[in-house]
């Protein structure tokens, strides 16, 4: 197992290196835009652009530029300076990360509870009215886009524009450390909106898994032992049915930690998603590259954690 983890960590490094190379090539080397001109802003004259080009080292050969970027990244954890904010990208990311983590983790807890709960009930009451209703709603939840649900939620429940003002609306985010109550109030709607489609997907997935598992021979064995039906379902059935969900969950969470762009934009939450959205609209190359690297890091690490978790969940899986 240790051997396996060592090998996988090696891969994490290799993959991140490849992602950095790729993003560098896409944003700096392809003739999409001139970074120096972007940095110079609107009122630029050719002289200024040339000076910026020299300052940023953009006149050096590409390979050397990449080398300097990586050197700064590895030795000083320096991701460069944002054109837009004129601040270190590292600082921007660290400032925005708490909001994204709050949003992603809170929504994840919500969708796990809802998805798993509904999935189990629907599976056990298969073909009942309850099953058909929840699965129908789930199909709707999967199909409805986040920005649509987000706007509907705001119009219905936001405390500024909502028909029934209940929770904090757009632009109400407060950090947890400043005011926990305001933090909670501001995130309830985004959590629900973000969780709906995931919960819908997870409930359908779990329902399918559990229906299949309940037909397994070992469930028959558990019943033949004289266990209570509750124990048969929860200890023997759900334990097996939920394992594949863990894989999906790890990856989903990893992706969201890299920024929930749509949700953060609709609710105007100052997180990584919002940061990357702004960076893209303003062609803020160092920030784009920083957030892409961060996203890649979360996804790769989530992948690794999922695989390790799997070995603990399913004893048959043994990594060499």
């Amino acid at each position, binding site marked *: 197992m240790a*051997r396996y983890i*060592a*090998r996988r960590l*090696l891969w994490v490094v290799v993959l991140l290196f490849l992602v950095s190379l790729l993003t560098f090539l896409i944003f700096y080397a392809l003739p999409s835009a001139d970074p120096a001109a972007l940095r110079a802003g609107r009122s630029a004259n050719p002289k200024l652009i040339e000076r910026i080009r020299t300052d940023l080292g953009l006149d050096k050969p590409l390979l050397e530029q990449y080398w300097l970027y990586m050197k700064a990244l590895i030795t000083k954890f320096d991701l460069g300076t944002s054109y837009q904010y004129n601040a270190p990208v590292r600082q921007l990311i660290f400032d925005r990360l708490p909001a994204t983590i709050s949003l992603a983790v809170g929504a994840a807890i919500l969708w796990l509870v809802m998805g798993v709960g509904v999935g189990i009930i629907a599976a056990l009451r298969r073909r009942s009215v309850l099953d058909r209703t929840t699965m129908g709603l789930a199909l709707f939840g999967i199909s409805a886009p986040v920005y649509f649900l987000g706007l509907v939620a705001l119009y219905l429940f936001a405390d500024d524009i909502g028909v029934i003002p209940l929770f904090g609306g757009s632009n109400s985010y407060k950090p947890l450390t400043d005011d926990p109550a305001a933090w909670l109030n501001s995130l309830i709607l985004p959590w629900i909106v973000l969780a709906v489609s995931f919960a819908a997907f997870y409930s359908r997935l779990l329902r399918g898994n559990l229906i299949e598992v309940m037909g397994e021979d070992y469930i028959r064995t558990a019943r033949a032992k004289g266990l209570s039906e509750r124990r048969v379902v929860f200890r023997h059935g759900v334990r097996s049915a939920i394992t594949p969900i863990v894989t999906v969950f790890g990856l989903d969470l990893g992706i969201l930690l890299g920024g929930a762009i749509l949700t953060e934009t609709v609710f105007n939450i100052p997180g990584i998603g919002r940061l990357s959205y702004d960076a893209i609209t303003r062609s803020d190359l160092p920030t784009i590259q920083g957030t892409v690297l961060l996203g890649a890091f979360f996804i790769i690490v989530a992948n690794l954690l999922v695989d390790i978790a799997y070995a603990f969940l399913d004893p048959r899986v043994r990594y*060499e």
Partner: protein
Amino acid sequence: MTPAAAGEPLVEVRDLVKHFPIRRGVVLQRQVGAVRAVDGVSFDVLRGETLGLVGETGCGKSTTARLLTRLLDPTSGSIRFDGRDIATVGRRELGPLRREVQMIFQDPYSSLNPRKTIGAIIAEPFAIHKLLTDGEERRARVQELMERVGLNPEHYNRFPHEFSGGQRQRIGVARALALEPRLIIADEPVSALDVSIQAQILNLLRDLQRDLGLTIVFIAHDLSVVRHMCDRVAVMYLGKIVELASGDELYRAPRHPYTGALLAAVPVPRPTGRARRRELLPGDVPSPADPPAACRFHTRCWKAQPRCSEEEPLLESRAGGADLTACHFPLSAEEVAERVPELAGAQAAGAPGEAGPSGDAEASSGSSSSPSST
């Protein structure tokens, strides 16, 4: 029945080895061991005979079959088919071999494409090898094949799900026969079928062999089925052949203690019921990744001596006949009679097809009261 000695070898297998490597390592994967699925087997398949490969799970019988058809590439050793070495030739040069060797599989459900009609399935080999391109001709040939294996030719346009398990296995047989192969490899062809259906397929294979002069390699775990079907039988244990003999000889006088134990373990439907004494092999089959030294059976053999763990017994004639045994201390006739009394009873029994020879009831209950020598 074709006398085994009269046939010339169609297939000659020599020192055939198939190891599946076990790899480990952080960056570079080093080979740290191997599962020795087939570990040096030699045998001939004679023209027109049925050779049985029998043994328990993991003995290497199915791997051997896959090597014979080159579905797997051997690690080392040679396979000569009709005088030509096919163990090492490239896949492209295998073309003719693919026509002359056909397989029948265990599971008649999963080996037929559910979206194709029976006619199309049986005609597949013609399509692959671009034969009988004339549609009418091809159809006639397929229907002839269907008739041959006991299917109604009018069912040409039906789909596999419309057929029962036994009928599907007949379809598999018809497809295997389409190109008039010289060698058929049947891998557990009846073990997925209902008891009352097995006999239909076994009889079909026996008739086909007799009528068409087919050479068959018949792989099974069921010793009674192999006995019924095969002219000669090779018994495998942990990647090695431990005994290779004519069917008559093997079932009358098994020489290897493993063969003896296998035969003694077969439950026989007989009036004496539970009175029969059983010879039990202790423990489980060792791992093929780390087989015991010298004779692989010595860890479970009741006759094992120190020599058995030091010197590997060669597969050779022990009694001076054609019966080959890889054992330093083969079973004596008395030991066989004591352990597998019904074999002697079967030889002495009267008319063929007798449903329950009552004559050997006493013989068996008598032996059950004799002291066990284990």
